[in-house]
Each structure stands twice: as structure tokens, then as C-alpha cells.
């Protein structure tokens, strides 16, 4: 079997608090295969965003190792990794085109190549008519498209998505999911999606990891078995119901745990 694209071994995260150390996450062992679409679901507060930040190099693990393409991740974001966050990360003083090329312009990329990639990303994300618009003029879904496009143009080999559709309405989420699948197929990148939405994970991912309540550990990894050319219409497939049902079966007790003894 090929070497994993991302590899986590014995990773834990402990936060110092006033009441002593808070064991937030782990130990986690996880391998992402190159080019797969991997989703992580878990109850709120289980540390799934922390997991992503450790792979992104934004938060160092308290113990254990994280490797990307065989190299240990330090306290910097590794080359070839793109991150999309849940919150609006558009720069309000820049128009859509300048927002998208923001990261690209500080890489050693020729001017005409920047223009070519910008044009491609605008087309793929349906933003061509909005290149000169400012973020304040856009809807939440459009702004998230801008952030995805900004990651896309740097041609990352690993795309990390931290609840990217969390602030969007259900219809927009389904359509954005289709766009994400197109993007994944077009780029061949490995995708890690953190989400609290079971249907989103079940529809988009090749494999879904279910995490326990805090301290978050990986309970089980479920293979969805979809073909690579899937789209949002699989939500009406009976097999889709079986996958989400299985995910909820694993997650229900954990979510009750996360709510505390009162629930």
C-alpha cells in the first residue's frame, strides 16, 4: 500500500486552564490516503477543529507526531496545504479578484499564470460576474466560494475544510457540496472535511471518521463506497440512508455524553 498522504501517530492535545490541564483530544492515530475525500464528524466540543489545526500547522500537538508527505509538521503551515474556515475570511477592503489572488501573489508565480489561475477559479466557483465586487456586496455562500477559490489558486495537494458550510442554509450547502466534489475531481487533491452535519459527510466523503466526545478519539472509520463521479443526488439513494443511519448510531451516545448528565 502507498505511503499515507497525512499520518497522525499518538496525537494528543492538552490545554492548560485555570482548573488544571484539559485533555481535549486524543490519542489519535489517523492516515489519509493520497487523493481521497475524508470527512470527520463528532459531537460539538470533541476537538475536530483542533485536529484540523494540528494538520494545518496552526496548533502544535501536545504529544505525538503529524506528518504531511512524509515530513513532520512544525509550527508553520506546510507548503501545499490550503485551509478554508467556517467564518467569513474575506478581506473586506479587497475586491473578489484580489481576495482570490491574495495568497498567490506572494508565491513565485508569474503574472500571466496568476491571471490564468484566477480565471479558472472564477469560472469553477461561478464568480466570473463578481470579480470586481467587494465582499460586503456578496451573500454568505458567495463569500465562502471566494475563500475556496483563494485556496484553490495556490494548487494545494491537501485541502483542509473546517465546517466550511456551517453558516449557510441547507439548499446552498447541497449545491456547494456539488461544487466541492467537482473541485476535488478537477484538482486531484486530498480533502479533509470537518463537519457536524452527518448528511454532508455521508454525501461527500469516501471515508468518514466518527469521533467520540471529549477527549476526542476516533471511534470508527466508515467507508461510504460511492463512485468518484457522485453528486448531491445520492441523498435519495437508499444506501445513503444506511450510511447516515450508521453514523448516527455511532454518534448518538457520544452526543448525549457531550451534552452532559443533565440531558
Amino acid at each position, binding site marked *: 500500500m502507498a505511503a499515507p498522504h497525512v499520518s497522525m501517530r499518538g496525537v494528543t492535545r492538552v490545554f492548560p486552564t485555570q482548573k488544571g490541564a484539559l485533555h481535549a483530544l486524543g490519542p489519535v492515530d489517523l492516515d489519509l490516503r493520497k487523493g481521497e475525500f475524508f470527512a470527520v464528524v463528532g459531537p460539538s466540543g470533541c476537538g475536530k477543529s483542533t485536529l484540523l489545526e494540528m494538520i494545518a500547522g496552526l496548533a502544535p500537538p501536545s504529544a505525538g507526531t503529524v506528518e504531511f508527505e512524509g515530513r513532520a509538521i512544525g509550527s*508553520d503551515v506546510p507548503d501545499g496545504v490550503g485551509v478554508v474556515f467556517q467564518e467569513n*475570511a474575506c*478581506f473586506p477592503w479587497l475586491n473578489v479578484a484580489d481576495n482570490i489572488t491574495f495568497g498567490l501573489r*506572494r508565491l513565485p508565480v508569474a503574472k500571466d499564470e496568476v491571471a490564468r489561475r484566477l480565471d479558472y477559479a472564477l469560472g469553477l466557483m461561478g464568480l466570473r460576474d463578481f470579480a470586481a465586487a467587494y465582499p*460586503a456586496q456578496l451573500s454568505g455562500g458567495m463569500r465562502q466560494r471566494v475563500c475556496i477559490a483563494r485556496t484553490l489558486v495556490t494548487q494545494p495537494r491537501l485541502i483542509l475544510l473546517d465546517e466550511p458550510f456551517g453558516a449557510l442554509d441547507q439548499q446552498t450547502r447541497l449545491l456547494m457540496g456539488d461544487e466541492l466534489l467537482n473541485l476535488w475531481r478537477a484538482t486531484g487533491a486530498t480533502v479533509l472535511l470537518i463537519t457536524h452535519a452527518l448528511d454532508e459527510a455521508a454525501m461527500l466523503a469516501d471515508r468518514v471518521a466518527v469521533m467520540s466526545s471529549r477527549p476526542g478519539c476516533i471511534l470508527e472509520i466508515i467507508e461510504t463506497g460511492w463512485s468518484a463521479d457522485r453528486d448531491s443526488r445520492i441523498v435519495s439513494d437508499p444506501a445513503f440512508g444506511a450510511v447516515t443511519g450508521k453514523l448516527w448510531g455511532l454518534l448518538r451516545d457520544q452526543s448525549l455524553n457531550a451534552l452532559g448528565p443533565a440531558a
Partner: protein
Amino acid sequence: MSRARRIALYQALAVAIPVLLLEVACRVGLIQPLTMPTPSSMVVGLVEILASGRINAAILKTLANVAAAFVLASVAGVALGALLHRAAPVRRLLEPLFSTYYAIPIYAFYPLFIVVFGLGDAPQVLIGFMLALVAVIVSTLNGLDSVPRVLIKTARVCRMNAVQTATQVTLPYAAPHLFTGVKLAAAYSFIGVIGAEFIMSQSGLGYEIRFAFDNLDNQVMYPLILLILVVSVTVNFTLDHWDKALRARRGAAR
């Protein structure tokens, strides 16, 4: 009539009506000529003074000093604010000083500055600078506090260092706040420089006003006050116009 035009009309009326009332009050003798000349005669006096050219050098000197204090305070204030924002313990130490700073009579240091720096322009620029500086620092800190964490994380994803993050992400985000500080800095620079000239100096607008004041020369004093008013309002309106343009592009949200 559009909303913007209507506001402009109201603003013009808000100035014109009191001026008109003042003119009437002066003319009917409600206000004695020794207390205040009519506004129209202030305008005539100002035109005459400017046309005669006898204090043009003083005007230029004062405006140059105001500009120097303003630019120095704006640049140093943003830079110090950005540094303090990163040095949380120092900031906590200085914050009580910032909130009581404008209770300190800066002018009390003026004689000391004259002793140290001489009777040249430096003490006056320094007074203007000191008055303006803290307003810029405070608004820079407020602006940087308002930057969402996700934008700082985005800067890290783009592998930007601290200086790049400040100049390309956090300070541009904080720009509307910075503008508030810069507008205050303009007003404080005028107050500081002209006030210092008024207290003790050998030239400048403040000195000319003081000279006229000591000689009960209302025909010079009031036109010069009018001049300061016109210049500072013009500067403020210009900054305000840029500020509005900046905010409009970024949406009404902030």
C-alpha cells in the same frame, strides 16, 4: 432632492443661520463692536490681511508645523499602536495612562521644551505631536482588537510573517478605526501648535493672534481665528470624505 444633498443643505443651514443671527446681533448693537466685530467684517478683514501678505510667512510657518506634528503623530501612533498590540503586558501597564492622558496639561511642559529645544519650531511641533499621538495609538489598538481571528489564521496559512501580517492584513482591516484617530490627530495638531505659539513664541498664527489680543485689535484677531476655523474645517471635511469613501466600499457593516 437626494438624501446626501439634503444633508449637505442642512449642514450648510446649520452654519449659515447662527452666522446670520450673529451678524444681526452685532449690527443692532446687542453685541458691542469691542467684544466682537460683525462676521462680514471678519471676512473682509481676512481678505485684506491675506492680500497685504504681511503675515503670509507666519501662516505658512504654522501650517508647516501643524503638518509636521500631524504626520509624525499619525505614523508614530500607528507604529506604536501596532507594537503595543503585540506586547500585551506593556499595553496593560500603559492603558490607564492613555485613558487619563488628556487630563494632563501638556502645555505645562512647554517652558521645559523651550529650555531644552530653544525658541525654534521644535517645542511647538512637539506639543502638537504629543497631543495628537495618544489619540492615534488608542484608535489603532481599538482597530487591531476588532480584527477577526480567522483573518490572522488566514495570514498564517499564507505563510506571512509578523510585519507582513500587520501591513497587509490587520492594519488594512483596522483602517476605518485608524481614520478616526487620524482625524482626531489633525484637530489636536492644530490645537497643540497654535496654542503653543499663543503662549510663547516669536512668530506664527498663534503669535499673531496673541499680539492682536494684547493690543485689543479685534480687526486682526477675529479674522485670524476665522482663518484657523476655515483651514481646520477644510482639512476635516477632506479626511471625512476619504473616510466615507473607504467605508462605503467595505459596506455599511462596519
